[in-house]
């Protein structure tokens, strides 16, 4: 049992189901984090470029 999954059991069903679920969530989370971080970086870079 993992602290964030109440009824987690170490069997193939749970590993496949939750593995796929967290895999998808992970990709979406990582993708959005990258986009937001890069947008913040680009914005700061642009504002610094325009202030010089």
């Amino acid at each position, binding site marked *: 049992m993992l602290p964030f999954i109440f009824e987690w059991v170490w069997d193939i069903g749970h590993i496949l189901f939750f593995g796929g*679920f967290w895999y998808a969530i992970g990709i979406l989370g990582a993708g959005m984090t990258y986009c937001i971080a890069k947008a913040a970086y680009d*914005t700061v870079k642009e504002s610094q470029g325009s202030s010089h």
Partner: protein
Amino acid sequence: MDAALIPEGAKRCSFPKFMLGIAIVGAVLLWGVYAMLLCWFKGLNQTNMNDYYGFALWIWADLAVIAVGGGAFFTGLLKYIFKIDELKNIINFAVIIGFICYSSALLILAIDIGQPLRGWFIFWHANVHSMLTEVAFCLSCYFAVLTIEFIPNILENRQLNKVPFFHHLAHNMHGTMAIFAATGAFLSFFHQGSLGGVAGVLYGRPFAVREGLLIWPWTFFLFTWSAAAFGPCFTLLVTRITEAVTGKKLVKDNVVNLLAKISGWMIFTYIIAKIIDTIYWANVTVPSLGYELSHFYTGNSLYGYWILVAEVIICGLIPGLLLINKSTRENPNLRLLAIVLGVIGVCLNRWVMVLQVMAVPVMSFDTWALYIPSWQEVATTILPVAYGIILIAVTYRYLPVFPQELELNQSKPQES
């Protein structure tokens, strides 16, 4: 009044006229919301479902909107993974339609479960042997994908795009969209399939049960295939309706014909597989379970052989042939006919796989169960339609949904 929010160069109707339209559709929406609140506060006794007939109008509506919403994942797959660049001119609208369909599906499920406060149980107390758990997981995740795909279009609003951070965010999200689209295709494959899989593993229901491959019955693959095949038809149909309402050409014919051609081949190959599946089921599966084919299509006032012919031939084979044939595909009227037939066909398929499955008598003492939904069920099923119309109206007015709109309407400035 709201001119600053309207895309540059685009002609839209006056704000009061727009609000009048929203108010009319909004009244229908409120009727649905009232019925929804009745179901939530008074319980599922507001419906005509019972222990015998647990999958009813909502589940059909749910499966139908998910099937027609499949245009978003399939168009995204074609555009971002197979790099069919022409589809960039319709992908925004496909995503909006998908967003509406999937948010509607989740809304219907929230009403259908009776106690929405316990909706999170499916994640926390997940039954990993249930295909519907897989559907819930994939549906939720795919709705997140659609939201992510929709965000850049929202950020391209004339005013929002002036904010540097939003401008860069939209740009970066466009750049990484292939990853999101691939994830969406992966999720869609499984939830579309598992919705069909649910029917295929109903061992106590000989009308639905099918053999299959490993743990997946053939209905798993047929549902995914049909969503990819007919989903683009719905995208094209809503595009055509939007063009009719606005009085403008919004997407060039070459784009429409391309998507229609792909859809046509998908429909044609799907319907061949469906015919093979039906023949095998009728001649092998059904007799092995002690039934005859006539058991499923006679002895009642609604479900006759006509529904099989309508689904497979009239609304399956015919639209497929019309769309793969160049001359009929490029004829606007025949193309529209094929698209309409296709959308009816996939909705009919979901109806058969949900409602007819429940209606067919199984035990020797059973009779046909012909269910009639309550007005609350009808109102809550119409609710997503009203919501969809409002969202399309708002997005069309304020967002650059159709990249070709200005080019196609330069010579004839008119209000819509």
